């Protein structure tokens, strides 16, 4: 009798038995589909911020267009948590810079501000902005990577030798309201968006 059984794909007909097997397989797959979504358990949800956030300076005040000095920088914690230990973490520290005059820092709008991850793209030391004449750039204390404050691109040192996206600092998008207060727009943590902290960002032309 086995020899008379129709092969499943002959003439486009599927035997009843094969159809049932197919249904069983489909059922097995369907049973486990809900668990795919459970993968969201893995990434840290504190990194996801859906609303705009204040640029909160170390003294607790919100940064403002009118009061923040030109050619100056502050370290800002973002996204800020309730845990003081976590807030000290390098991955949450950002350098909030008002550009020097020659790079357009005098403009009284959001274009004169930048906010970059302070985690150096080379080996994750914390770089910072140096406003002294002749410097006016981000410098990493560890291996001397230098960053352009205008774009966040490394132009010297080991970070500059890394291939994209690991030569451009992650950057947060900023906006200001009528009162001049500065806000951080919700980020998109991908190399093509705001970048990945410690890894980098593709520079958009």
């Amino acid at each position, binding site marked *: 009798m086995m020899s008379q059984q129709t092969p499943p794909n002959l003439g486009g007909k599927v035997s009843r038995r094969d159809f049932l097997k197919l249904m069983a397989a489909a059922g097995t797959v369907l049973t486990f589909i809900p668990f795919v979504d459970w993968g969201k358990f893995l990434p840290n949800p504190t990194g996801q911020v859906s609303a705009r956030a204040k640029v909160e300076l170390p003294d607790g005040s919100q940064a403002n267009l009118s009061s923040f000095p030109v050619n100056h920088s502050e370290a800002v914690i973002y996204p800020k948590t309730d845990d003081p230990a976590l807030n000290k973490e390098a991955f949450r520290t950002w350098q909030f810079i008002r550009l020097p005059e020659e790079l357009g820092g005098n403009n009284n709008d959001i274009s004169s501000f930048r906010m970059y991850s302070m985690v150096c793209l080379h080996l994750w*030391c914390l770089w910072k902005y140096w406003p002294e004449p002749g410097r006016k750039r981000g410098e990493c204390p560890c291996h001397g990577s230098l960053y352009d404050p205008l774009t966040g691109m490394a132009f010297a040192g080991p970070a500059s030798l890394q291939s994209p996206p690991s030569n451009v600092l992650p950057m947060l998008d900023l906006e200001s309201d009528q009162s001049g207060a500065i806000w951080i727009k919700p980020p998109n943590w991908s190399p093509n968006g705001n970048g990945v902290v410690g890894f980098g960002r593709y520079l958009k032309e």
Partner: protein
Amino acid sequence: MVMEWWDLGATLKSENSLVQFCKWVYEGVDRTIFMGMKFTIPSRFVSPLGFLGMLTFVIFIILGITGALLMLWYEPILDRAWDSVERINDTIPFGFHLRNIHYHASNAMVMVALLHMYYQYFSGRYKIRNEILWVTGIILGVLTILEAFTGYDIIFSERAELAISIAASLTNSIPVLGPDMREAFFGGGFSDFILRFYSFHVFWLPIAMLGLMVVHFPRFLVFDVPMVMAFAGAIMITGGVFPVDLGLKFDPNVPPGITVPEWYLTGLYAFLRTMYDKFVTGVLWPGLFIFTLLIIPFVDRYKKFSWKDRPIITAVGITSLAQIIVTTYWGFYIDPDIQKSLLERLVIDPIFFYIVMVLLVPLSFGFTYMMIKLAKNAESKAKAQPKKTTGKGPINLPAKWVYIIFIGLLIFQIYLNISAYYAVLSGMNNFSLFIIGLMMLVFAGMFHIYRHGRAMEKAPPPLPPKPAIQPKAPSPLPQTSRAVYTVEQTVEKPLAPQQEQRARPSLASSQNTKSSSIRSGGQTDSSASREAGTSQEIVSSAEIDDLDKAGNAREG
């Protein structure tokens, strides 16, 4: 035989209820998964090359125990990880010992696993349906390195941070999925990294390794107590002589000193230091290397086993070894000229580097060709010349001297115990660790002397010298005890009893010795059953010698 006070085996012959209980348990093992294994405790010295896998497993167990103890004090928390390791090292009693054993055992495990792999590779033991063993072995090797890697990351010293940053950026560099994978597996910052590397280190990777080991274990296993003890002792002695330092606590505001990763990763580090694309150098090249190893048994079509008869495969193996050695050394090397900028000192010129890598290929092939020529030459010369009867003469100690040495070692152990105790009291932790390592070695020696003495006791009296081979020496003892003696004979020098056994494999296999051989534990008929297993697998082949080797290969 007259019982003497030093006849240490004598006490085992009277069976009290405890011994009976142990035997009962041992027989119960028959009903478990272990019944398929043939477990041998060799009764004389065997080359450890044949059971490096078992040694790797023993080191894994050592790591499991010391690691579980370290878990009691280690805290996988961003600002406390390093401090907790410092506390283990400096203040908790014997924390120094456990940490050092854990560290050096991790290095030993990677090293022994590598040796194990190359020994199996060059002796062609992944053949004859051992492909699954080989493939799981390669995966186990990769997991071993990941396990060691995650281990030194969670100390969160400067070097650990460097390692984490490289791991994270390599994951990030994977096209399309990379950043999401990094986010999912490693989390979003240092705090997550430490906690998750910790969970990988103490749970996910070991459990995966244990699962794979179940598949990887061959049916023939050798547990050589003195060799296991010698390895454990060597690990402790290394810990005593080179105690591992803590490194400096990572601070993102302080320039770190120049650090290189652990030796099993400096090869990869050398590639990364060419500053080429991270994905290609850090993910693709190692991936290609692992993939090549995985497919080797399916590429190797030689019918023979010896490295001499498989020139291309041997040459590929030698090439990989040469490249591993060169890149490992290169990864360590940092230009000592401090006048130069750090970047100049660190970056490896990719053109130079890759040219060397390519040049190593013809060099290794030439070297292999030469070695095979030389080996075959030596072989044919040895055949042409009359056989040397002596070779390595066995050391035959008189029984009295065996006991004197034994007692001497025992006294030495007591002395070592006292000095280890005083070393701990006076804070010389590494000295104490060194002495304990020495004690393990002395124990290994004692065990060896002990079994040597027992073997001597059972061995037949020396035969009068005869001109030719004596196929049937008169044996006053039952066959079984002699069979034990032949278990670990290396194949190069088959002794008379082994040939005898070869003549009757069908007999041995028909005895259905499977279950009884487990209980034997190498004491009685393990050799016979081993032979039986071998012959069951490979009855029809003509290449008995090679296959015999292959039979040995499955140990360990």
